[in-house]
């Protein structure tokens, strides 16, 4: 029985991990929490639904959604957040802007798609598999494989590629990055795009699993992903990913041993406990001081 809950928790945890990484990417480079990330997730889910209803096929639908969602974030950053940065607006201004943006997205979705819960096609299949006494949906295997591939891919991109090096350079010292000839604007756009992409993939996986979408679907999962990110160490990719997995499994075990009613509360109690012991998150570290 417990194994079953752990498998389910891991599934959910990987989704949290994908969401958490989205927060982490943007936080790393801009030291800003993108509170619109949950809404961006909902936006991605609706885009996939729309393109699938247009009979474009699942793969093109997902690719188009990634482009559109990533593009939306890039435009949002270029027009609004970049202007705030240029005017040296305090962090709180950017924060409230992202909260505002999340409502604009959600309202837009309500107007365009209606407020009701809509059926989402089972893009990843409906088959169930049984291994021993653990039963799981085939889509859970997808969630496992796709999210791990994406997380590892993102990590490789950031630590091994040239654009990843540029991202880390801008993150640590944007003035010096300028002097290296790095186009910081471009790097920030790439970061937002990747953040959007991870949200769309999370949306694809989870919406196909639950087979529902609705405009406010990103609110709770956004908060959970944010918590997971802080829990693991925001700004640190693998930390955020591990944070997500821990959160997912903890929730699932809560449902097993306590009751489903405690599920959401436990996520945040866990966050408090870990932050009290490790204020920078599990893998967060105090900054290396510049001499």
């Amino acid at each position: 029985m417990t194994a079953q809950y752990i498998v389910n928790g891991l599934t959910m945890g990987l989704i949290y991990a994908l969401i958490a990484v989205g927060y982490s990417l943007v936080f790393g480079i801009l030291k800003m929490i993108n509170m619109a990330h949950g809404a961006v997730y909902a936006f991605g889910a609706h885009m996939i639904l729309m393109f699938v209803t247009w009979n474009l096929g699942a793969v093109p639908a997902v690719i188009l959604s990634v482009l559109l969602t990533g593009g939306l974030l890039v435009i949002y950053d270029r027009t609004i957040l970049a202007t705030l940065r240029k005017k040296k607006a305090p962090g709180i201004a950017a924060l409230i802007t992202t909260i505002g943006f999340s409502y604009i997205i959600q309202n837009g979705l309500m107007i365009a798609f209606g407020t009701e819960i809509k059926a989402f096609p089972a893009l990843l299949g409906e088959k169930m598999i049984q291994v021993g006494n653990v039963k799981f949906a085939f889509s859970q295997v997808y969630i496992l494989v796709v999210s791990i591939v994406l997380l590892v891919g993102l990590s490789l991109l950031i630590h091994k590629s040239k654009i990843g090096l540029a991202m880390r350079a801008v993150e640590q010292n944007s003035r010096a990055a300028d002097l290296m000839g790095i186009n910081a604007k471009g790097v920030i756009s790439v970061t937002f795009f990747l953040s959007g992409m991870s949200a769309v993939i999370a949306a694809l996986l989870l919406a196909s699993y639950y087979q529902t979408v609705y405009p406010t679907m990103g609110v709770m999962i956004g908060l959970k992903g944010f918590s997971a990110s802080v829990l693991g160490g925001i700004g640190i990719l693998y930390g955020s990913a591990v944070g997500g997995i821990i959160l997912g499994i903890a929730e699932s075990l809560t449902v097993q041993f306590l009751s489903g009613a405690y599920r959401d509360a436990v996520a945040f109690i866990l966050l408090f406990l870990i932050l009290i012991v490790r204020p920078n998150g599990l893998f967060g570290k105090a900054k290396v001081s510049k001499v």
Partner: protein
Amino acid sequence: MNTYYGNIHALKGIDFEVNDGELVTLIGSNGAGKSTTLLTIAGVLKAASGSRIEFNGHDLTKLSPPQIVKMGVTLSPEGREVFPELTVEENLKLGAYCRKDVKEIKDSFDQVYELFPRLLERKKQQAGTLSGGEQQMLAIGRALMNRPKLLMLDEPSMGLAPNLVLEIFNLIKEIHKQGTTILLVEQNANMALKIADRCYVLEVGRIKFSGDAKEMQNNDEVRKAYLGTVNKKK
């Protein structure tokens, strides 16, 4: 190579040039506008309209910092500004960020490591854990990775112990000897004048003196103001 320079708020119409192969130093007290000058050439600060910074026939005031770096004008900034959580190797790699000749970048690594063997020893170490002198070497090495046609060094001796200052200056002399044109900004005017060909003295945003570095060392007024001693013999 000519670098002309107009008005920006801190610089009240200064005009100077660095010729190909020269080591020119810009000295002056705090707040004279030395760093401002370098940051403006690098494109990080915008020159006021009407200014002209010419490099090999191109007007740098019309270019962005990445474009200026691509032209071969590289600044090693005041305070070193290394990327603290990246390794020494990654820092150097970033110095070559704008270069497209992937194969030859490896040669530049070898050259930098030959010049600064200590960076080779520490290539996997985080830059933030290096000593001040090593970070300065890294900052210069990083700038060299761009194979600059004009290398601008801002206060390379700042905050270093006297023996390290000497070491850094010897290395700058060596880099110059290997054919790099250098524009050096220094508070340590004595040391700067010893290795420079020519010198400009900047005072509150204006050029006060200019001339041969050796002659400057013997100029009473310059000595009194910037070198701390008056040459009695003269």
